[in-house]
């Protein structure tokens, strides 16, 4: 919320590619954004635009054949002894190494896209929560049990002690999601990443989970990266918004700016495609012309130009606009607002 403090997480020019036999999938192709302490950053974009790959890159859990090929992910550790040593570039750490594992789950926790399948079906919730506690805290089983129960209690799980012995498939979708959130909370992370945490559950439960996340954020003063393809949800939770399209950031700004003063043609089109902010629709983009290009044949230049209402021939299809500040809080990658291309910076 406070832009004067140093960012907790800084992502710069992140590129994560999947090298397939059929060709290179540039899932994330030059992403920039910051997350400040205590801030809820919403990343929004159509399905397949690289949201999950972006945060998997930050956690260094991109699956093969995906690979971070360029960029930096600077994180300010808050917990360990070298908390004052300044930021660590997570890209330079070994993905499965001790340093990265000390950050994963401990400093940066994940609430995954599919809470249904993210728990092991043959281990109890308690077993998996206790494991999460003991991975990062030197406590005995009994203490770990208490911490886990406390976390379940905090996310509003009824009967938390008894639920420790339950299996994930014995819980309803909403409770399962709460258990997931509890697991992420057990180590008191500084940054919580929620990847479409409400996609799989019904609307009423969805609202409860969103409220829960908001209140947890305030109580723990965490930062949250909240991923969704649903602008309606963004409006309810985010302070700051990152709009993504085809692996690139189109626009960033405060939630007010994005909703009331959008600058990028893609953001405008997104906003026009939902009737009102408070009736989130499942089909997000019925009104945007054309369809998302296949990841193998990405257009040259701005990825959005083939569908863009303000397409400028000879400009947008030749050079790729870079993300530039247009005022204090808002940045846009569009030649309508500036003429700095990615190619200029590389040169």
């Amino acid at each position, binding site marked *: 919320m406070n832009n004067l403090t140093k960012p907790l997480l800084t992502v710069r020019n992140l590129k994560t590619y999947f090298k397939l036999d059929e060709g290179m999938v540039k899932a994330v192709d030059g992403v920039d954004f910051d997350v400040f302490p205590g801030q809820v950053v919403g990343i929004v974009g159509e399905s397949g635009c690289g949201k999950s790959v972006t945060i998997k890159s930050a956690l260094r859990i991109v*699956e093969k054949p995906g690979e971070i090929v360029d960029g930096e992910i600077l994180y300010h550790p808050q917990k360990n002894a070298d908390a004052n040593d300044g930021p660590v570039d997570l890209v330079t750490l070994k993905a499965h190494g001790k340093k990265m594992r000390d950050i994963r*789950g401990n400093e940066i*926790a994940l609430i*995954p896209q599919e809470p249904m399948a993210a728990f092991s079906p*043959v281990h109890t919730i308690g077993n998996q929560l206790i494991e999460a506690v003991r991975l990062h805290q030197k406590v005995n089983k009994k203490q770990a049990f208490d911490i886990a129960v406390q976390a379940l209690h905090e996310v509003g799980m009824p009967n938390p002690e008894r639920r420790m012995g339950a299996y994930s498939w014995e819980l309803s979708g909403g409770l399962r999601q709460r258990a997931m959130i509890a697991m992420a909370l057990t180590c008191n992370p500084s940054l919580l990443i929620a990847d479409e945490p409400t996609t799989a559950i019904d609307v009423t439960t969805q609202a409860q989970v969103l409220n829960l996340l908001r209140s947890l954020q305030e109580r723990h003063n965490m930062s949250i990266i909240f991923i969704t393809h649903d602008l309606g949800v963004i409006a309810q939770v985010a302070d700051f918004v990152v709009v993504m399209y085809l692996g690139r950031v189109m626009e960033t700004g405060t939630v007010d700016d994005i909703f009331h003063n959008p600058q990028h043609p893609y953001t405008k089109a997104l906003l026009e495609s939902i009737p009102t902010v408070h009736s989130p629709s499942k089909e997000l983009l019925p009104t945007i012309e054309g369809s998302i290009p296949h990841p193998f044949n990405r257009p040259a230049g701005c990825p959005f130009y083939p569908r863009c209402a303000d397409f400028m021939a000879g400009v947008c299809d030749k050079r790729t606009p870079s993300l530039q500040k247009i005022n204090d809080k808002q940045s846009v990658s569009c030649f309508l607002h500036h003429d700095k291309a990615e190619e200029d910076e590389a040169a």
Partner: protein
Amino acid sequence: MLLYVIKRLLLLPLLVIIFSMFAFFIIQAPPGDFVTSYIAELAASGSSIDQAQIDGLRSLYGLDQPIYVQYLKWMGRIITGDLGVSLDWQRPIAELIGERLLLTVLLGIFTFLFTWALAIPIGILSATKQYSFIDYFFTVVNYFGVSTPTFMTALVLMWLAFSKFGISITGLFSAEYVDAPWTYDRVVDMLKHMWLPMVILGLDGTARLARVMRANLLDELKKPYMEMARAKGMSEWRLVMKYPVRLALNPLVSTIGWYLPLIFSGSVIVATVLNLPTIGPMLLRSLTNQDMFLAGSIILIYGFLAIIGTLISDILLVWLDPRIRMEES
């Protein structure tokens, strides 16, 4: 869980009775009976037997009675614990089986342990290092293992051992120990002979089990809980062993019960080829000679163990997988 086991146990006698009928009628199915094949054997050696003696033999063994009477008499004796006398060997069946049981079971257990101890690590290694050199290597080896008939392997190895090294690798004992009483030296001699049949009998199963383990594990490695466990900060090896390996093993562990009848009988063909003093070859001989009570007894015990084995497998599955436990209760 307990209720489930009790329910299954109550079904047991019924299954055994049905199975015993099958066994008895199938043994009876080929034309002729023990006396017919006895006559043929005598004829082959140049002697003969008159009709009165034939009828005498038939009524002595009860072969002149209708088949269901024979079956009921047989069952009646078995219920009192009497397996009867082998027509062919002219000795009590319990004794015949007992003699061979120890070696058969030992070989069966060794083979089983060998198979699992080898196949599971190979499966885990192949799956976690999919498409690596080691994975391709085991894939090729496994294909050989699965596609070569076991008796072929046995014959080839026997021939190799005999032609190259001049040693005979049949049987489970050296000549001097075959009929010797059990001593320390005899045990050592047996172990020296046992490893080869163990390897031959185990290769096929190892290859299969490793393939199944690899396939199961590959499925599990793609599951979202893997990503979650990584995101928690678990080390790669530990999480692989705790989650996907456990889930991939569940269906396999539940097949353990199926080995029970195999441990009792051993392999028929390979044991015959290798001339092993186990129960398998005895079953083959009893069938060819229409030694119906011996064959019937072996098949009955086999079937009984198969039923018990399946029960054990089902219980294991229920015990290992809470989702199934839930459904059953």
